[in-house]
């Protein structure tokens, strides 16, 4: 649905996007991560047809963003960073205007505006001036604007910024419900949000893609090893040695009394065997689970690793 190849863009001499390639399948929700100034917004502006790229190509729904921009824009809902809106219009007038320029036939406008108001939970402020709304509500109006024409593709630049926790959850649920029918790219700085809503993640740093995978794979891949947390009820002085002897186990460490951390190769799942061992020996199994690395750890590792690399190169 979205195909990005070797995108490069700089502002004057300042490079913003150095070489970005990725693709998004139809119905997928892609999380776009990266530290500040990584080039997320710039990439999204290029995809939305607002900025041209210096080189490289991008297609949305099969149309080239630079040569068939209008076709792309017909199929696209875009929420820019900070949701720029017209402060002197009421919410419903504003949405009507966007419905019109997005080519919705006149007789469907009222109905589409109503649907967008409901989806984004802004029905009660529809007759208020946008300039008098709180930041969170303005953000929701921006989202409603992007959704109004039921676009195939949605590009949302930090859609949950400024929302309260309840609204964040509602918006996340809304975005999740868009998956399957719509293709979504969303950028965010809230990492748990990505694990919750996105099927796949692209992490960019200094204008380049540094990782691209599902949130689960990213966390296990980074770890390199799989850690299994094991807790038993009874005292088992030999357990450490016994566990170490199991085929495939690399290392065992004791975290607390009767709690162990078993490390194996990441492509090996020994949970079943470990459980059987402990039960057969009568140690009393209390807990057994895979220890997770958070996406936060992955993010920090990936985006600081490269700076260290650059330092050593210099």
């Amino acid at each position, binding site marked *: 649905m979205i195909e990005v190849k070797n995108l490069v863009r700089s502002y004057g001499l300042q490079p913003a996007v150095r070489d970005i390639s990725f693709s998004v399948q139809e119905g997928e929700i892609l999380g776009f991560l990266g530290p500040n100034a990584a080039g997320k917004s710039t990439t999204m502006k290029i995809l939305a047809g607002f900025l041209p790229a210096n080189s490289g190509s991008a297609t949305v729904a099969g149309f080239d963003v630079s040569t068939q921009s209008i076709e792309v824009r017909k199929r696209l809902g875009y929420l*820019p960073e900070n949701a720029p809106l017209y402060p002197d219009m009421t919410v419903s007038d504003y949405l009507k205007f*966007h419905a*019109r320029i997005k080519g919705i036939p006149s007789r469907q406008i009222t109905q589409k505006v109503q649907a967008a108001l409901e989806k984004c939970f802004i029905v009660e402020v529809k007759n208020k001036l946008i300039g008098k709304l709180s930041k969170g509500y303005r953000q929701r109006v921006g989202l409603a604007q992007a959704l109004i024409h039921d676009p195939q593709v949605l590009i949302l630049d930090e859609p949950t910024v400024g929302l309260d926790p309840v609204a964040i959850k509602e918006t996340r649920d809304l975005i999740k419900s868009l998956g399957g029918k719509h293709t979504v790219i969303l950028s965010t700085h809230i990492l748990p949000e990505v694990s919750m809503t996105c099927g796949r993640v692209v992490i960019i740093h200094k204008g380049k893609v540094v990782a691209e995978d599902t949130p689960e794979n990213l966390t296990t891949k980074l770890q390199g090893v799989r850690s299994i947390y094991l807790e038993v009820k009874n005292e088992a002085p030999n357990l450490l040695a016994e566990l170490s002897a199991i085929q495939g186990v690399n290392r065992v460490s004791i975290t607390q009394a009767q709690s162990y951390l078993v490390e194996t190769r990441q492509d090996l799942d020994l949970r079943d065997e470990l459980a059987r061992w402990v039960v057969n020996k009568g140690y009393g199994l209390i807990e057994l689970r895979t220890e997770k690395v958070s996406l936060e750890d992955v993010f920090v590792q990936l985006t600081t690793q490269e700076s260290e690399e650059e330092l050593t190169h210099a």
Partner: protein
Amino acid sequence: MHNILAITRKELHHYFSSPIAYALATMFLFINGFVFLMVVYFQQQADMSVVTMNMGVIFLFLCPLISMRLFSEERRTGTMELLMTAPVTETQAVLGKFLGAVGMLAAMLALTFHLPLFLILFGKPDIGPLWSSYLGLLLLGSGYLALGLLASSLAKNQVVAAVTGFGMILFLWLLSASGDIFSPPVTDILKYLSFFEHFGDFTKGVLDTRHLIFYLSFIGYVLYLSVLSIRNRKWR
């Protein structure tokens, strides 16, 4: 067409909810009423030509003040990003905004209709010049607005847009005055390019297609430049 009118409607909405527009309209009406009083009451002439000429002069600074916000404001607040990522072409955006500004100017002109009506009720003016004067004013003002729109597409700051627009309009206006310095062929060209030169006939009730063509082709050309300006700005 659909998109153009949607944008025109939006621009008119901005004008009618902006204090600047009301201040401009008030000033415009006040000065015109004053000039009308001087000519009609004190000089006892049932004639609008002086008032019309005066309006043409007021347009010099009124028009750039009307057009200054068209693109500058959208670029400053970032709404340009949403407008230009909707399925709207640069041409549609330029035409929609231009028509919105013309609509605003036409509304201001309509507010002065009571002046000629007053003449018709209490005097015996020539009806022809009244009509052609208003047509001339609308064309002259539209030409100025087109220049102002071009200036607005170039500058991110509204004040800079207004000053640039005013400069361009003043330059065109002065061409007829400077024309006399040169010898015939140059003079003729300069006079042809001068905005006010074409305006005179309208106030006398003469409808000449040459003047019509001049204004319309001028507006078309300047709007075309504005489209190019918007299109190229995206390449920065």
